[in-house]
């Protein structure tokens, strides 16, 4: 379980996170939504240990990662997989080399096994016949799939998705969301999705948390969020309220 307690972070004089509190249960898929530039990515970078908070703590399975040494943090990171916003594939490696990179660097598997697992991971994300292509030769949607295959290959217990569908057309966006659902069903990871793609992300998430003014102002099922009375949440999800959703 991941628990964020009173997380605060400032850059210069600007307070980006002002006391974020959130609990994320094992195997659930939670979407953290909010405005662009509202601190969602900063929150994610704290969760994966790339930033240290000014105040507050992040408990992962009972241990505070914000005060851990690098070595302890690396042990926690072994449980994580991350799909970065721009996919962050290694430019100098082929698609296949990118996918099996964690296997080559972190396991002692022989090449036959690596080959087999790499192929299987690529098939899981619906990619075939692009093994030898370089990231610059494939589309944005394919890059996200490759990044997901790379994140899945070591079987992490938690996968973080930083804006996994930003910049993609609605069809590809839908396909990526379906992929997150299908891989979650198969691998059973805890999924944390940072997104502002409303209402599409509601189809993927079990729970949604709304980040506004550096705080979580609402949290609940997609239905709870759509029907939330908070004026900002209401404004943010107004497109969904027009849809066929009954708020009783």
């Amino acid at each position, binding site marked *: 379980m991941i628990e964020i307690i009173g997380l605060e972070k400032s850059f210069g004089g600007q307070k980006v996170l002002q006391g974020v509190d959130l609990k994320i249960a094992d195997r659930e898929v939670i979407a953290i939504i909010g405005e662009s530039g509202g601190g969602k990515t900063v929150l994610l970078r704290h969760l994966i240990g790339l930033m240290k908070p000014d105040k507050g703590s992040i408990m992962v399975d009972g241990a505070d990662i914000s005060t851990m040494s690098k070595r302890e943090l690396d042990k926690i*990171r072994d449980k994580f997989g*991350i799909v970065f*916003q*721009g996919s*962050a594939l*290694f*430019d100098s490696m082929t698609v296949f080399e990118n996918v099996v*990179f964690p296997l080559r*660097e972190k396991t002692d598997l022989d090449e036959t096994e690596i080959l087999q697992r790499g192929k299987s991971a690529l098939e899981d994300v619906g990619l075939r016949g692009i093994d030898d292509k370089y990231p610059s030769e494939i589309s944005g949607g394919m890059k996200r799939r490759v990044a997901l295959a790379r994140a899945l290959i070591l079987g992490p217990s938690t996968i973080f998705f930083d804006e996994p569908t930003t910049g993609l057309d609605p069809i590809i966006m839908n396909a990526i969301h379906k992929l997150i659902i299908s891989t979650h069903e198969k691998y059973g990871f805890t999924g944390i999705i940072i997104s502002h793609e409303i209402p599409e992300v509601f189809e993927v998430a079990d729970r949604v948390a709304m980040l506004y003014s550096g705080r979580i102002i609402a949290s609940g099922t997609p239905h709870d969020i759509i029907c939330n009375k908070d004026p900002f949440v209401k404004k943010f999800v107004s497109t969904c309220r027009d849809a066929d959703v009954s708020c009783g």
Partner: protein
Amino acid sequence: MERIIRRLGAWALSKVRTMGRMVLFLIESLYLVFVPPFKHRYLFRQIRFFGTKSLIVILLTGAFTGMVLAIQLYYTLRKFGSDALLGPAVALSLIRELGPVLSALMVTGRAGSALTAEIGIMRISEQIDVLTTMALNPLRYLSVPNIVAAIIVFPLLAAIFDLIGIYGGYLVGVKLLGLSSGTYFSQMEHFVEMSDIRMGLYKSISFGVIVSWVSCYKGFHTDETGYGAEGVSRSTTEAVVMSSVLILIWDYFVGSVLV
């Protein structure tokens, strides 16, 4: 007045902090050179990147440096009736000084800048963060192979620069200005000592460390110099300028200590 002093203090503190971070970066990289696992694949790639790809520029600059040196030294030495010493003068200038310094400056312009840009782009496109979040030390993949490759390649490139420069000096001194071939080479053998070659070697190795260290550091910290492409452009410029200045400063210190 107080504001000026405050700003000056803040500027000085930020410079000291940067220097401290640079030194820590170098110490950690040098430590990882001796701690397994070693990334041989990346090392061979970087040897090719620093070495093979810099060969043409080294051959060209080496030849013309030797030729210019021969012309200039010939007219000076002739005034003192010592034109027979042209061979050793060219060889000593190249081996002790110009070979290591100019080859290092050439590699800084060709490979150092490209290295900073490559690592800088990896930084802004979150590829370095990928390594960190995989619990892999990015320095092991990006800094260590470059430092080791530069330590291996810089002395070799300087040696090639020296050789081709001496041959360039031979073409001008012997073929153009009419000095005898025997005088050019026999005097060289007499005057150039092992300590001169050692000095050139030490300089090249240290320049290799300087160029790879500064280039990698600037690439790693691209996000601190600016955003996106502008940040990469700025860090690349800073890497080339800083490496070049440090090469010349360090050259003076090594030269005065090992004279």
